[in-house]
Structure formats: C-alpha cells, structure tokens
C-alpha cells in the first residue's frame, strides 16, 4: 500500500516556524531513511504522518486521502526510541492491544485475537515472553515486542522514530535483520528517522536528508 505525499502535504513545525512541503512516495515494502541533526523536527514530522501531532496532516495511503479513512482503518504504526509497552499489561496483552481497535481484528473474539498473537510469537520464537511483565524484559526483548506490536495488525504504513538508537550493536543487528524480513514479507511501506547514519545502513533501501532550509522535503 503506497504512501504518497500530495500538494496538500504541508506541515508547519515549531522548530522552524515555516511551512514545510513534502513530495514523493514510499512504495510497498520499501524502507526510506530520513537523516537529520537532533532537534530539526524529524520526530515531529513523523508524528504528523502518524496523525498524532497537533493539527491535521494530509497524504494518500493506497490512493485514499488519510482524512477519508476511519481511525480504525488508518493503521499507521509508530515505534519510538523507547519500547513504550503498557506497564500494567503482560506481553501478550500488549500485543493484543492494537487488535482490539483496528479492522478487521476488532470484530474478532478475544480467543481469536490471542491465537493470532500466539502464532506470531511462536513464528518469531518469542513464545517464552508471552506471560512476562514488560518491566522484566531486556532492552532488546522489549524493542522486539514493541516492533511486533506495531506490525501485528498488518499496518498500512510503519514509522520508526530512532527505533534502534537505544540498542547495543549486537541487539541492533539482530532486531534490524528480523524487522527487515518482516517488512519485506508483509510489504509495509516504512519510514525510518535517524540522526546516526549507521542506523540506516543495511536497512533502508534509500535515504533522504532533512532539508537545510526546512522548506521542501522530497522522498
């Protein structure tokens, strides 16, 4: 499902206080990296794409304008630098969380939703973590669960906000290769924001630099 920025894709970021126009598109299963220095507005831009920023941001998802899609059909998943698992829910319940709200899974019974969660956990050899408390997970395990949670409901678009920056070198390599296979398998258009070039290496299909004048961002 292609993510396409149109002539309406304009956002005013607090960092520059000037309108930023976005052009271009991200194809199915394509991973685009966005590089830029800290504090330039990359994360704020990503939040606008995820529709959780202040104000509306317009673009097309699979040929349909985002504002025409109901919230349960938008399915844009955002992963932060921190895993941000809900601390009072078990790993299984954290993974089931998006299925409770997104189509078509929201109409499924609890058993069916849990079955999907367990299948995914099993497929990725993470079943042993299912009943664990998020606070008992290591950084790498928590990040894997956060990414899995973001992809479990078959998102139409995946946004990664410095998702690898808190991981050590070895865990980072593991999570990257595991996520890469998942994105290619599910054909999810993915946008990754990073201020460290190494995070984009051997992961992004192409990379784009944040514009110096913050006027036009072309993908």
């Amino acid at each position, binding site marked *: 499902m292609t993510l396409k920025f149109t002539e309406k894709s304009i956002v005013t970021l*607090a960092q520059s206080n000037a309108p930023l126009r976005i052009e271009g598109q991200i194809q199915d299963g394509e991973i685009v990296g966005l590089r830029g220095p*800290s*504090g330039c507005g990359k*994360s704020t831009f990503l*939040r606008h794409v*995820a*529709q*959780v920023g*202040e104000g509306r941001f317009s673009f097309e998802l699979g040929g349909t304008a985002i504002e025409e899609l109901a*919230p*349960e059909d*938008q*399915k*844009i*998943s*955002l992963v*932060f*630098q*921190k895993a*941000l698992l*809900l*601390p*009072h*829910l078990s790993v299984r319940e954290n993974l089931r*969380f*998006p299925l*409770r*709200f*997104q189509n078509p899974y*929201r109409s499924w019974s609890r058993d069916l939703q849990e079955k999907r969660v367990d299948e995914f956990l099993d497929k990725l050899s993470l079943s042993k973590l299912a009943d664990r408390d998020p606070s008992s997970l290591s950084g790498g395990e928590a990040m894997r669960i956060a990414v899995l*949670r*973001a992809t479990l*409901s078959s998102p139409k678009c995946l*946004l990664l906000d*410095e998702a690898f920056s808190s991981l050590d070198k070895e865990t980072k390599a593991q999570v990257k290769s595991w996520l890469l296979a998942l994105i290619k398998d599910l054909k999810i258009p993915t946008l990754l924001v990073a*201020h460290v070039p190494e995070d984009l290496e051997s992961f992004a299909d192409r990379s784009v630099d944040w514009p110096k004048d913050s006027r036009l961002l072309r993908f």
Partner: protein
Amino acid sequence: MELVNPERPLSSTEKGLIALVCLGVLLPFLLFIADALFLWDFSALSLPFVKLLSRSLLFGMSEAAVSAALSLLLAATIALSLLSCRPSRRKIPAQVLQNLGNTLFILPGTAIALLLFALPTSLLESAEGWLLIVSAHVVWSSFFVASHLFERLSDWLESEGADLLRVTRSLGASPHASLKAVVYPLLWEEFRSWFPLIFLWSLGAFSTVLLLGSGPQHSTPEVLLYYTLSNDLDSTRLLILFAVSLCLQLLLLSLFTRTPVRSAPARFVLNSDSALVSKRRQRVELPSRGTLLTISTGSMLLVGVLIVIQATSIFRSGLPDPELWSGLSNSVSYALLTSLFCFVLLLALAASRSTLRKSALFLLALSPVLIATSWTSIGLGGVSALGKLPSLLLCALALALLQLPFAALWIERSLSALSSETLLYARSAGLSRRQIFWKIEVPYLRPVFEKLLTYAFCIALGEIALASIWMKEMPLLSLASKKLAQSYDFHSASWVFVLTLVAALLARSAFKKILEKLFP
C-alpha cells in the same frame, strides 16, 4: 561513599535508632496502658457505652469510606480537567481552575467547616450532620489530592506519558480507549495508595465532626475518645477506645504500606534530544472534556459562591471583635511553630529516605500516626507533667509528627522520580553524598516542602482537639470558631473564615519565598 540504595539492608545501629525513635513516640502510651490495666474496671463497660462505641465505629467507617472515595473521584476529575486544558490556547480556564484548586487546597479545616455554615440556615437545619461532615472532608481532601495528582500526571506526561498516549493512538485506540489504557492504571495506582490515607485522615478528623456533627449518633471513635478524655477520664473506657482505634489504624496502615508503588517516571532526562522534547508541555486528548470541566468547575463554583456569601456578610458586620485579633496572633504563632517543627522533620525524613530503606522510612514516619489525635493528648499530658514544658510547644510538635505519613508518601514519590542516572551523573561530577542531598535532592523537593508546610500550617490553624484540652486558657481562632458555629454567630464566623484563609494564603507565599532563598 556509598551511593543511594534504598533497598540495602539496615545496619544494627540504624535498626537500634529506629527502634529508639518508635519507642520514644510510643512510650507515654505504653505507660498509660500499664496504668489502665492495673486499674481495670468491668463496670465501665456498660451497655450504653458499647452501643455508643459501635455506633461511632459504624458512622466513622462509613463516613470515612464515602469521603475518601468521593474525594479521589473529584480529585481525579479536577486533575484530568486541568491536564486537558493545558496548554490549550484557551488558557484562562486552565489557569482559573488551577489557581482555584490551589487556593482551596490550603483552606484550613475550620474554614471549610465554617464555609458550610454559610449555607442558608434552613438548608443547614434540614441537612443531616453526616452530610455536612462528608462534604467538608470531600472538599478539603479532594483539593489536597487533586493538586498532587495533577502534578504527578503532569510530570509523567513530560516524560514517557505523552509518548505512551501517542503509541496507543497510533495503534488505533480512540482518545477514551487510550486514556483508559494509559492514564487510568496510573490513577488507579495512586488511588490505592491514597485511599487508606484519606480514610485514616477522615476517621481521625476532629474539627469538622465536632463543628458539624449533630450529637452522639454522628460521632466517630476519635470524637468519642475526645469526650471521654475531656469529661469522665475513665481509664478502662479509654483503653478500650485506644485498642479499637489502634487496630483500625494498624489495619489501614498495613493496607497502605502493602500497596506496591511503581517507580515514577524520570523527571530529569539526561539524553539531550529527549530533554528538548520533555521541556514542551504535552496536551492530552481527553474524551468529553466538557463533562470533566463542568463537574470540576461546578464543584469549585459551589465553594466560590459560599465564599462570596461569607465575604458579603463581612461588609454588613463591620470590624471583628478585638478578641478575634488576639486569637489570630496566637493561632498564627501556633501554626508557625508547627510548620517549623514540620520543616525539621521533613528534612530528617528526606535524609532518611536517602540513606535508609524505603520500608524503614515508612516505619519511622508512620509510628506517630499509630496514635490518634486524641491519644496524642494523653502522651502530651505525660510528657508535660514530667518536664513542665509549654503546652504550645508540645502541641505544635505533636501536630508536626502527625503530618509525617502524608509527608513520607510525597517525599518517597518525588525522590523516586529522580532518576538514578541523575544521581550517578552528580557523583561522577564530583559531588559528595551530602552535596547531592543539599544541592540536588532538597531543591528538587522544594515544591513538596512548600505544600507540606502550608498543609501543616493550615492543620494547626484549624486544629481543635489538642488546643481545647491543653491550651484552654489561650484564645485561638479554631476554638473561637467552634463556639461561634455552635452559637450560630454567623457574622463573627465569617470574620474567622476570612482571617484563617488570609493567614493561610500569606503563609503559603512566605514559605515559597523562604524555601527559594534557602534552597536555590
């Protein structure tokens, strides 16, 4: 030097010191128990006394439970309303709500009680005593807790809370579902730890029950103790009441201490990128903000109207009786002395939190509250008789000691929000343990100290029980208000209300300035 480790085992010296403090606090009562057992008299346990005791227990428990539940619900509504407004473009409602909330939080108990007396006489006469008592407790404790909840939620939203809300929203949850998944569990945790404390406070509150209660059917075990202490002084009855009171307190305190406290989010973020983000206050998208705003504004407007009624009465009545002025100066001295003791105890509490285990801190802080307010009187009697110390000094010290459980909770929550990375960073920058305490931890606790000192000041302004037993000769505003309320002297009561409120407001701003100077 060892870095802060709240879970390290206690050394034998520390254990000995804690035991000594607890024993020192409890000693007068242990002596009293021995004396009462020696003079035990079965005839004191007559049927009317047992009936009165069971009635007071039933009323006290139900009144405290209703007060605690309603207070927390109202507090959560107000805190969420404040959060939903901030930092909205329409800043006026948020600021008005916050300022109103903060002003009401410092209302002394007596002022609240008198405020309710501003209700039209017909309404007051038709209202049940318990309704007035519950209303007074709800108004006071809800604003106290609302202020805390608001700050806790704000702190949390400045760190990971806003991102958690964003994640849940991006996972498809509606604003309400997102709130339910993220904010409600946090609120529930707060409720579980605050409920026993508010319950305890309502159960032990004197002034409101004495001022607003209507006879023995609306009395609590504490008030019954007060009557027994001030009237017949029967040691057997006192011992029974003490045992009942102690069991209740222990039960509630075990509930309170067993509540797991999840560590609060880090307030100081060392990562520069995250720190930039965290400095910007986040806005929470709440469902039906109008409903939340209506409930909280309505409840505060109700109190606002009552304040206006009181104020207009002042204009009609002219200047207050000169006796009230001397009462004011005595009450302010009493309250300032209490705040001073409280300040020393707060520093000691913060220092022990830094060096002792969390459980040891609570043991120390909770030992005075095991003795209910009226029992402090017995203890004071013993100490006073032994040392011939001025009663004002002893009462102020007793009141300051009684603030410790609340203070322990606030200090624990606040210091646990200080990330261990911050302390490690400070150590690596060459700060000694003592410097970390005075230069980082205490300045960090400044807002907590400010609130707790104001709270102690207000408690002392409205305190009746200790004052009426040990400072009978000294004119105090709280004692005057008790007489005025009983005689329905509405004009003088209005003056008492305004004087206590102004004194509390001035004290709060003075404490703020002093603390800013002491701990920049």
